[in-house]
């Protein structure tokens, strides 16, 4: 009997600790990070664009600074290797950010009259992440390129 009484409090303490640990684990699971798009969302966005067709790597070059201080305004340059003739041109360029609340950033529609398939703009990045650019050619093929970046101050979610 004596033994039982001395062990019981230990058991309680351990149980309590496990409880706290599990709460912590659940807390981590529901952290605000889950509010952001995950890689699956980005993959789904890319699939929606390609309609299930294979997306090949290459031809597309995406340039973003490797280290970004402020994610609110990041200069992004995307260019696609293409002669841009009436028979061989880039129809559209889609830019997808894995770590943003909404992965789509922009879609640009080009024509042979564009001359080059090159676009520069300024985007928001919510987190350190990989950004993808998908080019849709006039022959129906899809090409992709990506760039990784580190963001120290994120965009989108700050209070006003």
């Amino acid at each position, binding site marked *: 009997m004596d033994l039982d009484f001395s062990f019981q409090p230990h058991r309680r303490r351990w149980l309590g600790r496990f409880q706290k640990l599990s709460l912590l684990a659940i807390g981590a699971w529901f952290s605000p990070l889950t509010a952001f798009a995950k890689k699956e969302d980005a993959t789904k966005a890319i699939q929606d664009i390609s309609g299930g067709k294979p997306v090949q790597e290459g031809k597309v070059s995406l340039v973003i600074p490797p280290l970004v201080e402020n994610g609110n305004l990041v200069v992004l340059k995307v260019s696609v290797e293409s002669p841009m003739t009436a028979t061989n041109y880039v129809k559209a360029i889609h*830019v997808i950010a894995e770590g943003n*609340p909404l992965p789509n950033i922009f879609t640009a529609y080009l024509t042979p*009259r564009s*001359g080059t398939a090159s676009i520069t*703009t*300024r985007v*928001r990045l919510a987190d350190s992440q990989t950004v993808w650019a998908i080019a849709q050619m006039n022959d129906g093929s899809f090409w992709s390129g990506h760039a990784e970046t580190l963001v120290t101050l994120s965009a989108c*979610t700050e209070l006003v």
Partner: protein
Amino acid sequence: MSKTSRTSITMPASAKKGAIIEIRAIAQHDMESGFRYTESGKAIARDIIRMFTCTYNDIEVFKMDFYPGMGANPLVIFTTVATETGTLEFKWSGDDGYEAINQAHITVS
């Protein structure tokens, strides 16, 4: 955001026929993403420019869809081939009836 706002176009005033010209188009707009909250915890409604189009003598040469991931005061730098003398019209349209139009003239020799 107001129904319209200031916009600016930077492009060459003249070009040789067939040359590729660079166009810089910027519109003044907050591009409220819809993912932000006020201090009292109220969500701020999304208010962004949704579409940007460029027509060259009434033929569409460039179009772009914007999502909340675009930065405030969206700047777009793109190219087009100078085919003929004429007017390029730029149009931005977005939430809450926002619309802005700007024009630029080009002389092609």
